[in-house]
């Protein structure tokens, strides 16, 4: 094995080294350089470039509060808790995986057995002062209950306004109107998940 593929980094053959002459040392050489630079018209190239951009008027400004960039589905902003489409109840089953995996130890949950003998989340908070938005909680959640939302404009008088379970949960009227946005990002199932499903091999 030789090192050719490491030395030749697939640089395009049309690349070439710029021919930079040595700096002049004597007075005559410096004078010649000055004259050359003076009449080469490089200054006008710069003028033309900015004027061209002004005429093209290809403005890239996003007037932020009025216009917003679309953010990617993998963006990890403040957490959201989703509801089940079938019954409008909370998806969270209180398994505690998110609390367990949270590397900055900011999720706290408390569960109890409700009157139907099902596990119910009685307390759920995320300390956003500690959260590093790593996305592990969303990734580990077996029910896609906790996800990261796209809401990055979370200015408030205090951070506690975002951390309670009720604040993160999809409001029931939004749910009833069918407006709950399904999470496509970190930890969500991929679009072709059905095709990748395999039957559990039972014929040993």
């Amino acid at each position, binding site marked *: 094995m030789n090192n050719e593929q490491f030395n030749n980094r697939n640089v395009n053959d049309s690349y070439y080294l710029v021919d930079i002459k040595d700096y002049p040392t004597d007075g005559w050489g410096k004078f010649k350089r000055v004259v050359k630079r003076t009449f080469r018209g490089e200054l006008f190239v710069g003028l033309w470039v*900015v004027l061209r951009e002004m005429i093209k008027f290809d403005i890239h400004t996003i007037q932020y509060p009025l216009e917003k960039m679309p953010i990617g589905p993998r963006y990890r902003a403040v957490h959201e808790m989703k509801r089940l489409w079938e019954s409008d109840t909370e998806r969270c089953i209180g398994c505690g995986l998110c609390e367990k995996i949270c590397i900055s130890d900011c999720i706290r949950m408390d569960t109890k057995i409700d009157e139907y003998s099902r596990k119910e989340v009685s307390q759920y908070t995320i300390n956003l002062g500690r959260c590093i938005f790593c996305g592990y909680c969303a990734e580990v959640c077996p029910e896609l209950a906790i996800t990261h939302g796209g809401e990055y404009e979370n200015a408030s008088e205090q951070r506690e306004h975002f951390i309670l379970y009720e604040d993160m949960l999809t409001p029931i009227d939004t749910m009833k109107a069918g407006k709950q946005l399904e999470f496509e990002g970190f930890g969500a199932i991929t679009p072709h998940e059905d095709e990748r499903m395999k039957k559990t091999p039972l014929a040993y």
Partner: protein
Amino acid sequence: MDTAYLIETVIKVVVILLVFSALAGIGTYFERKILAFMQRRLGPMNVGPYGLLQVAADGIKLFTKEDIIPTNVVAPIFKIAPVITAATAFMAAAAIPFLPQFTLFGYTVHPIVADINIGILYILGMMGVGLYGPLLGGMASANKFSLLSAARGAAVFISYEVVTGLSILAPIMLVGSLSLVDFNEYQAGGIGNWIVWSQPLAFVLFWIAAFAETGRTPFHLIANDHEIIDGFGTEYSGMRWGLFAIGEYANMFFLSFVIPLLFLGGYGDGTLLGALGLLAKMAFFFFFFLWTRAAWPDVRPDQLMWLCWKVLMPLAVINVVITGFIMMF
């Protein structure tokens, strides 16, 4: 001195002061907008339609800000320095004919405050005195960056004043007068009579020196944000800083008037078209001040002095000598 002349002069002074103070403000708007467009941004957009009222917002901010005199500054000099900059800029405007003479309600108006026969000398002198604004402001500020700026200012101003004076000497020899009105009449015959054709070198030299005069971008080293904060303006706040800004922009406007008047035919034969022509030329030169700021890098102080003393000044001297020989024979 009769009363009518006195009243007319006072009115002209007030009009020029008001118009160019306002223009200085609007100039900042133009500068921000044009720079923004050249950098593919939008510039001020939020105050008023297309950000037009940004000028008013800036004005209110400057006027209502606390006027801070820091502890260690030399207070009297610190206070007077911005006034020098603004005042000399406007005083220089006294000898500039902004428009051809026109008749208003049967009264002939000369849009020049004082048609003195040493107009150019007076304008250059006044703009030279304007040096004391940055110089005194920087030295009185008790701030290292301000002091650096003052030192740079002195070096720069000495360098370019020589070029300004020498480059303008050759056209003065041609015209035989120092009055801008005479300059205009010399070139009144049309585009072919413009001094720029007979004195192209003087035109370029004066134009380059104008950038140093106003401290605009290729020679913006006395208040270079990325090197010495705001230079002499670092310690200033509120309206005192605003006076520096007004002086700078008024200077840009006045020089944008002076360059066409000297070299590009001014208002020509004095018709409405000629007057509009002068305004158009003024607008181009003002635009060019902003244009270069978007396009060109700054030079170092030593580069500027090298340029002024070793390149521009010899060229100006050669230009004067050649002009003299041609006129003699």
